[in-house]
């Protein structure tokens, strides 16, 4: 399996703060990976660096064999990358349908057919004439996801797709992601909904203070000391250990 994305030594600072510090990892084609870490660890900044929203001070972002570090976002998108944002950036003064159409540019299928199929998958086809500004929070999130799929990406970056979403909607999102994964799309997800991410993703990358502190299968990461310390601090880690020891027999934490 080849790497669809390779990040090498990525670094960026704002003012005096180094937000991302020597980040390196590789994503295999067709995989579904989670990127987690405490608040402020640099996850969204990493996404911004990969998708071209911010230019790195140093490092490489190799997408499909090409170094796209520092490229304009639309050129990176043209190379097969799509992303969503923490707060859905749906175009408010356009209808749902128009939102889909504006993303269709290089699509090979007839865009109308593709848009209809995608919208039906998330129950938004009946709402295709609703204005973006009138959608509910959950609907906007779903729209953003299917809109990015209009670009026929090979790699999808999702920034907190489960944040602030009710359990039912969350199930819908989860189901779609599973389907997309099964269809061969490579997915990299950032989120804080630990249980969902652990279930969804085969592999977890853990960031803290701008760098990777752990990388491995989800089950291993749960027990990784450094990760626990990053989230809870050293004292908290001891508490967690003690609690895990006390309740461990059912395998529930």
């Amino acid at each position, binding site marked *: 399996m080849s790497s669809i994305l390779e990040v090498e030594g990525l670094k960026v600072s704002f003012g005096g703060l180094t937000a991302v510090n020597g980040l390196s990892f590789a994503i295999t084609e067709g995989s579904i990976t989670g990127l987690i870490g405490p608040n402020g660890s640099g996850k969204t900044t990493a996404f911004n660096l990969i*998708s*071209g*929203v911010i230019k790195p001070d140093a490092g490489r972002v190799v997408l499909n064999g090409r170094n796209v570090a520092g490229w*304009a*976002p*639309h050129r990176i*998108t*043209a190379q097969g990358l*799509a*992303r969503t*944002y923490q707060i859905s*950036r*749906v*175009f*408010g*003064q*356009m*209808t749902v*349908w*128009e939102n889909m*159409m*504006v*993303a*269709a*540019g*290089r699509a090979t299928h007839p*865009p*109308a057919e593709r848009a*209809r199929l995608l919208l039906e998958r998330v129950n938004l086809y009946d709402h295709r*004439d609703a*204005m*973006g500004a009138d959608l509910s929070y959950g609907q906007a999130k779903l729209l953003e996801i299917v*809109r*990015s799929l209009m*670009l026929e990406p090979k790699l999808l970056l999702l920034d907190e797709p489960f944040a602030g979403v009710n359990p039912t909607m969350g199930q819908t999102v989860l189901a779609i992601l599973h389907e997309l994964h099964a269809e061969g799309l490579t997915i990299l997800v950032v989120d804080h909904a630990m249980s969902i991410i652990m279930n969804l993703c085969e592999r977890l990358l853990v960031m803290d203070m701008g760098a990777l502190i752990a990388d491995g299968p989800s089950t291993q990461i749960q027990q990784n000391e450094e990760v626990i310390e990053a989230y809870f601090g050293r004292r908290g880690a001891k508490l967690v250990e003690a609690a895990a020891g006390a309740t461990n027999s059912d395998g529930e934490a």
Partner: protein
Amino acid sequence: MIAVSSLRPTTTRGAIGLAVGVAILAALAVVPFVLPSYRTALFVLTFMYITLASSWNIISGYTGYVSFGHAAFFGLGAYSAALLMIRLSVHWILACIAGGLLAAVVAVPLGFILLRLRGPYFAISMLGLSAALQIVASSWTPMTRGGSGLSLPPTLNLVESYFAMALSMLVVLFVSYLIITSRYGLRLIAIREDEGAAESMGINTTAHKVSAFVISAFFPGLVGGVYAWYLAYIDPTSVFRPILSIDMIIMSMFGGAGTVFGPVIGGVVLTAIAEAFWARLPELHQAVFGVLVIIIVLFMPGGVMNLLRTRGLLPRNWRI
């Protein structure tokens, strides 16, 4: 059939609209031959303002880059066309087209530079540009004869000016229509709504912004030339004056920026009001427009067209 944009007329409503449009065109075609010249002149002025407002609408209403100094292109076109007619005896139609082209060509590097600035910064930069060009026109005496202005061989041909302005207006409205019903136009709106998200969607925002800016510069340049030819005299104040930029903005905003007919409504209503009430009192004109701007921003920022949309008389995403 699912249309890319549900806005190209394919229904009876569209057919009626087309019929009405043709009737209006026919009526307009006979105006200069039936109405007295002072009334015809009013039409000429209205057509000019509609053209200006419509052009402004392309970069500001559609793309969201609000320009406070679009008179810059009007003045550029006026001076270029005037100089071509005076110095090289170029035929007025060619001179005007050249004026438009020159404004468009200047807009290319200008666009690349200025469109990197966001919102208020772009607005104020355009204002400064217009002011700076006025200063250049006043100071570069060997070329422009400074404050004395340029006099052209007087033709005062009302009929030809009428049709020239009318044609310019129809062309810019048609271009507006083509843009807003195309995917290109949808992408401009995306840029207006959220430029960052548009970039992520694979839209080359720079190319789109600059092209919209260039289109929006051509038509003011064109009618600037016609204005110069018709009046047979221009000076820095008359073609770069801030009130021109103001008029463009108010007409478009009042009628409904971001729609094809918004600038038409605004142009017709406001030119009529201006003529009827205060052609004699320029201070009152500006002051009332100032109050109007305040009212528009506070109570109807989307203009007349948006009122129709929010009342349900037009679909929510109606942009024609």
